[in-house]
């Protein structure tokens, strides 16, 4: 198996946070974190597998030209609006949405659309609102938060299109399929 640089970063990160946890909270906290991580992994596997498959299937269904046309750099405000709608309607956790973002990226969506999508999924996600926010935070909080966040994904997408033209933030070419 090939070990990439990113893998090493995450192994190091786990070691550093684990050492901090041990020093600050002692062995029981470390054990709790270990079992938490284990359970989390088991819990997300079915959804992660589905997310990866959805990503793979979507790349077969939509042609590169089509995605590039609908969500590419030239798609204008309409592309951002479409990405926002898609993000708000995508159910599931990050283990589902990020494989899809990756698939859209390789299929030709631009930084603006991808970032509008992620912002919409995280800020306006319909599924999370119904399942968690409404029952836990109440209707008054939920509607105020929803309305306050409504314009934000498109704003982020516009900004991303602008910033990604700067040298320091230029997005790498999408990896080949």
């Amino acid at each position, binding site marked *: *198996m090939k070990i990439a640089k*990113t*893998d090493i*970063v*995450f192994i190091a*990160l*786990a070691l550093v*946070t*684990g050492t*901090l*946890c041990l020093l*600050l*909270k002692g062995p029981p906290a*470390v054990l*709790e*974190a270990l079992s938490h991580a284990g359970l989390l*992994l088991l819990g997300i596997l*079915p*959804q*992660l597998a*589905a*997310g*990866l*498959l*959805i*990503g*793979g299937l*979507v*790349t*077969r269904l939509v042609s590169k030209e089509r995605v590039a046309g609908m969500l590419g750099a030239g798609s204008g405000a309409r592309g951002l609006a479409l990405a926002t709608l898609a993000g708000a309607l995508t159910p*599931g*956790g990050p*283990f589902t949405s*990020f*494989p899809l*973002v990756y698939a859209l*990226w390789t299929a030709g969506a631009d*930084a603006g659309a*991808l*970032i509008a999508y992620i*912002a919409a999924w995280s*800020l306006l996600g319909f*599924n*999370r609102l119904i399942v968690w*926010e409404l029952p*836990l*935070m109440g209707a008054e*909080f939920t509607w*105020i*938060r929803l309305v*306050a*966040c409504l314009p*934000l994904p498109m*704003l*982020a997408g516009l900004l*991303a299109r602008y910033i*990604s033209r700067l040298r320091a*933030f230029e*997005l*790498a070419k999408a990896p080949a399929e």
Partner: protein
Amino acid sequence: MIAAVVFIWLAVFVLAAFVWRREGRQGLVHAGDTALGTAKTLMLRLPFALLAASFLVQIVPVAVLSDLIGAESGVLGILLASGIGGLLPGGPMTSFPIAIVFMQGGAGLPQLVALIAGWSVFALHRLLAYEAPIMGWRFVALRMASCAALPLLAGLFAEVLVVLAGID
């Protein structure tokens, strides 16, 4: 949780049916190959990412910060709440219960909106566990730069709405 899994797998089967109708077995094999390729890159980093995230949950203090984002804390409180939100560990099943603790501890409504928005947008935990391994650090940097002001804006919009709706 179970309903979500059922729904997502339903989506997988519907999409698979579309691919099968258009490209037959061959299309499904190709789709599977693409999925397997992504899975291979995640195989090693995902368990360690989840581990790091779980350690973070243990380290970050929560209740201490409650006083600092009260209803009278204004724009500074909104800014602070955005930052705290970004550090909140875990998915909705841990962050909303934490938000309730803040709510009962006397946090203001616009500050809470900024907190939830900060958690949604920055989510250090999600960034480390999923976004960086899948999309790479360059994408993360671009997204963070584009979204940096969103929680502050959400808090300010909420402040306006609270005033307009006349909520104490």
